[in-house]
Structures are given as structure tokens and as C-alpha cells.
């Protein structure tokens, strides 16, 4: 892998990836024959009903699950090496902030573990909290903030260290629609400002279409990719773009892909 930062460089490459969970009730096929490439700087959404393996795929990238067949590389290495190289930041469904740490100390957590120096740490905390608009809340504790602010703090925590890849697992799933819209448009700005590669799991069609440069439609039992849609929307996306015919056309195609996955099952 070269580090020229070219747009064509592939960050995640999965070939024939499969994952089967062994349970007491027998085998559950979570992923089957997934072929996918995520290129540097892309914003890729994974959408599908629950049980389609979208979260599992994200966890395989993060080396939190082990695939049982096929191959996957992250930054040209195995997911395990990518994890040990701290080459991605992961944002979970819940903020998962430590209640005994203030917001700034929560953001400092990965920096402490990865051994960043004191002055560097302080500068990075400041920058990360600015990116998510949480200046002035450094000394607060997580339980003193709203759900949306907590999730923003957890994004700041994933941005604080030098990882070019951001993995987000339904980060706004538990938030109400208005907060969600706001955070979505902020996330796009943040993506433009940081030039990171983002893999984003969601079950909301508008969210996926609004955010992504590429939408991966998945279907359950067994979890597999049914469609990959390259977005034709411009990079600059105000919230109103969601009423344009272009947006609705993509949303329609996503919906068709999801329906196809379902009819296959029934």
C-alpha cells in the first residue's frame, strides 16, 4: 500500500467474506460471500433490516468478530494488525462514555492508552471537541449531558487520535429525528473537514442516502450484499436536498433493494 492519499486507494477490501455463528440452536449464517471495497475518503453506508449482518461486517473490520471464510484486509493488513496499529475509530450504538470521567477525560482515554504526550493530548482534546461543537462542556460528566451531546462526545473520542477510518454503528439510532438531522449535517461537515473514510451502519433510508457516497444494501438470512449504489448527489448537501428528485430516485432504488431482499426470504 502506498500512502499517497489518492482517492483510488482501498482502505477495506473483502473477498468472499463469510461468518457463521455457532449457537446452541445450530449455525447462524451472519455473513455470506460479501465482496466489497471501501476506498480512501469514501462515506459508505450499510443499510438493511436487523439480522442482515451490517453490524457484524463492521465488527469484522474492527477485529471484534472473526470471519469464518473468505478474506478481508484493512489498510492492506489483517483486521487484527489494523486494530493493533490503531488505524480506526469506532463509534458504538450507545455513547459508552465512562461515567467516572469528565467529557475531556473521556476524550483523553484513547490518547492515554496510546501514549500521547500531555501537551499533545490537551491540543487534541480541544480540537476534537471543537469538531463536534462541544466547547465549554469539557468539565461536565456524561450523565449531565443530553443523549445527543453524549453521542457527539463519543464521536470526538473516536476522532481524537490519528485514525483515517471511522466505523460508526448506528450512532444516532437512539436519538429523536430533529437531533438526528442536526447531527447528520454536522457529520457531513466533519467528514469534509477531516477527510476521513467513514463506514456507517444505519437502518434509515434517508440517513443513508443523505450521508453516503456509496450505499451498500444488505438482506438477512443469510446476511449478504444485494446492491451497491454509487451516489450521484453533489458533495455539498444542505438538508433540503432530501426533497430533490435525484435524492428520491436514489432512495427509491435503496427501497427496491431492501424489498428484493425481503421477498427472497418469504
Amino acid at each position: 500500500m502506498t500512502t499517497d492519499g489518492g482517492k483510488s486507494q482501498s482502505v477495506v477490501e473483502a473477498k468472499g467474506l463469510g461468518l457463521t455463528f455457532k449457537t446452541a440452536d445450530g449455525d447462524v449464517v451472519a455473513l455470506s460471500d460479501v465482496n466489497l471495497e471501501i476506498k480512501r475518503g469514501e462515506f459508505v453506508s450499510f443499510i438493511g433490516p436487523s439480522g442482515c449482518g451490517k453490524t457484524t461486517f463492521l465488527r469484522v473490520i474492527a477485529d471484534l468478530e472473526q470471519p469464518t471464510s473468505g478474506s478481508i484486509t484493512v489498510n492492506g493488513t489483517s483486521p487484527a494488525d489494523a486494530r493493533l496499529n490503531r488505524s480506526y475509530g469506532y463509534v458504538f450504538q450507545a455513547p459508552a462514555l465512562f461515567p467516572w470521567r469528565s467529557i475531556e477525560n473521556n476524550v483523553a482515554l484513547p490518547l492515554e492508552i496510546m501514549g500521547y504526550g500531555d501537551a499533545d493530548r490537551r491540543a487534541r482534546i480541544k480540537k476534537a471537541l471543537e469538531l463536534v461543537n462541544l466547547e465549554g462542556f469539557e468539565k461536565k460528566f456524561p450523565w449531565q449531558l443530553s443523549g445527543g451531546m453524549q453521542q457527539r462526545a463519543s464521536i470526538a473520542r473516536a476522532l481524537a487520535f490519528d485514525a483515517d477510518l471511522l466505523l460508526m454503528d448506528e450512532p444516532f439510532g437512539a436519538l429523536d429525528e430533529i437531533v438526528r438531522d442536526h447531527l447528520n449535517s454536522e457529520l457531513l461537515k466533519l467528514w469534509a473537514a477531516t477527510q476521513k473514510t467513514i463506514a456507517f451502519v444505519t437502518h434509515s433510508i434517508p440517513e443513508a442516502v443523505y450521508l453516503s457516497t456509496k450505499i451498500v444494501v444488505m438482506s438477512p438470512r443469510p446476511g449478504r450484499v444485494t446492491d451497491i449504489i454509487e451516489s450521484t448527489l453533489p458533495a455539498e448537501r444542505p438538508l433540503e436536498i432530501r426533497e430533490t428528485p435525484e435524492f428520491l430516485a436514489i432512495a427509491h432504488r435503496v427501497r427496491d433493494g431492501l424489498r428484493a431482499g425481503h421477498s427472497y426470504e418469504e
Partner: protein
Amino acid sequence: MTALQRVLAAFASGFALLALIFDFASTEGAPLPVWEFPLVGVFLVLGVLSLVRFRVKISYWVDGVLAAIGAVGLVLALETLQQAEPGYWFALVASWLFAWLFAERLALAIARDEVPDAVGVLIPAIFGVAILVAWEAITRGGNVPKVLLPSPSGIWETLIGNIPRIAADFQQTFLKAVLAGYALGCGAGFLVAIAVDRSPFLKRGLLPLGNFISALPLIGIAPIMVMWFGFDWPSKAAVVVIMTFFPMLVNTVAGLNAAGHMERDLMRTYASGYWSTLFKLRLPAAAPFIFNALKINSTLALIGAIVAEFFGTPIVGMGFRISSEIGKLNVEMVWAEIAVAALAGSVFYWVVALIERAVTFWHPSVRGGRA
């Protein structure tokens, strides 16, 4: 006035009236009328007159002062009377009821913000004083044998009169055996818990062993520890170690599993090592469990050390004093030691609880929020 207040007021005045009618007390068979005790007399007459409250509003402070005059008068009366008669007991009940009425009305006034909240400490204080007054009156006025129940004043006098001896006992039992045993037992339980958590092999072996040791009867191991570690305090500390080890072990093992899956995954995405995850995530998450064990053990340790002294000890120590003084039927000394032990145990617990509040300030049970 609430219904409860009306009932309390009526009964309080009613008992005051009864106390004026019945024989009050006697000495060597000769009756002692109530006007021999002016303070009690004033209390009873004013108590009956307080019935005007059903026509005119009376401040709750009047009830408080009435109860106080009655209590002081009744306790002072114990100096001269030999045997309390029905009138005395009615007066005691009346004084208790006035105190209750006062507490009831004061609580209501605090709820209505008529007086500052700080005055609220009066209410538990009234309860404590009322118990002591009733105890004093019943034991002395009723001539209860000291062996059954000595009076608070008798216990207090014994305590004050034997300060050097009790201080030596306290030092021997609490400052040496309890604190040393507590620190060693809790420390060992904590370290073994971390080892057990690290290794499934140790978990299978050590947890049943810890369980087994904790099931051993205290009175069985105490004499054995005396054989092993000698008569002085180390054998008592050893008993305390055995008693405090297991609660700490079990609680810490449970606490180390308290961190959520998501938080553990998070640490894994940072490629965080075992120790880093232990210190930054799992031990802070285990803190509420660990403090639970520390609080349980703070009282267990004292019990263990005192009981262990029943089985061979130098002639000092709270347990030794209790067992030897009960043999001499010197019950007041036993109660004095019990009072010191109860106070020391409460303060110990309170200090641990205070540290807990400072350390686990973030926990919903401490900050009073939801999870």
C-alpha cells in the same frame, strides 16, 4: 391541626391529668405526692392546660418545652423516689406524647418551609433522647435489676470511671486486631479476586476454597488461630482476616464483571492491554462492589475480633473485658464496652461510606440519578 395531632394532643393532656390524679411515687412504703417534685408538677399542670389548643392556636415550641420540662423533671425525680407508682408512669407517657407531638408539628413546619431545614436534626435527636429518658426512668423508677438492664446513667458513670481501662481495650482490639486484620483480609481478598479473574484455573480452585473457609464457624477457628498465632492480637487479626477475606473476594470478582460489553469492545478497539483495561475500565466499574464489601467487612471485623478474644487473650481487649466482667456480674462494664464497640463500628462504617461517596460519585445510587 391534623387528625394525628389532635389525637396526640388529647392523649398527652389526658395522661397528664391521670398523672395528677394517681399516686405518683413512694419511698420505703410512704407515698411521695407529685408536689414534692415541682418541675413535674409544673409540667403536668401546664400539660393539662394545653388543652386550650382546641380553642386557641399554640406554637409547637410550647409542646417541645413542655416535653423537655417533663423529661428533666422525671429524671431528676429519680434521685429521691424509690419506687415509681402509676402517676409517674402516666407522666412519663405524657412527656413522650408531647415530644412526639412536637416532632410531628416540627416536621410539618419544615415541610411548609416555615423553619430552616437545619432544624430538622432536632427530630432524630428528640427520638434518641426520648429513648434514653424512657430507659433511665424504667430501669431506675421500676427498680429493674442491674443484671437485666442497667440504666444509661449507670453505664455512663462506669464508662467515665474506667476510661484508661476501656481505652487500653479499644487500642488492643480495635486499633490493633481489627484494623490490621481488616486491611490484610480486604487486601488479600482484592488481590486474589484479580488473580481469580485473570485465570479460569484459579477461579475453579480458589472460589470454592474461599467459600469453604468462610463457612467455617467463627468459634471453631478462633481457638485454632490462638494456637497458631499466640495469645496476643495477631491471632485475633487472623480471625478478622478469615472473616473479611471472602466477602471482598466474591464482591470484587462480581465487580470485575460489571463493565459492559460495549465498554470492553471499546477498549479492544484501542488495542488496550490487560492492565490498562483493568485500571481504566474494570476497576472503576467494580468500585461500587468493592465498597460494598468494605462496608460489610467494617462491621464483620469488629464482631470477629471481639468474639475471638473469648478464646484466650492477654488480660486486655474488648472481648476479654466483656467475657470477664459478665462473669463478675458487672453488667454495667459490659454495656460500656458494647457502647464503645457500637460507636467505633458505626464511625468505621461511616468513614468507609464517606470515602465511597467521594470515589463513586458518578454512580446513580450516589448522585441520585438514573443509570
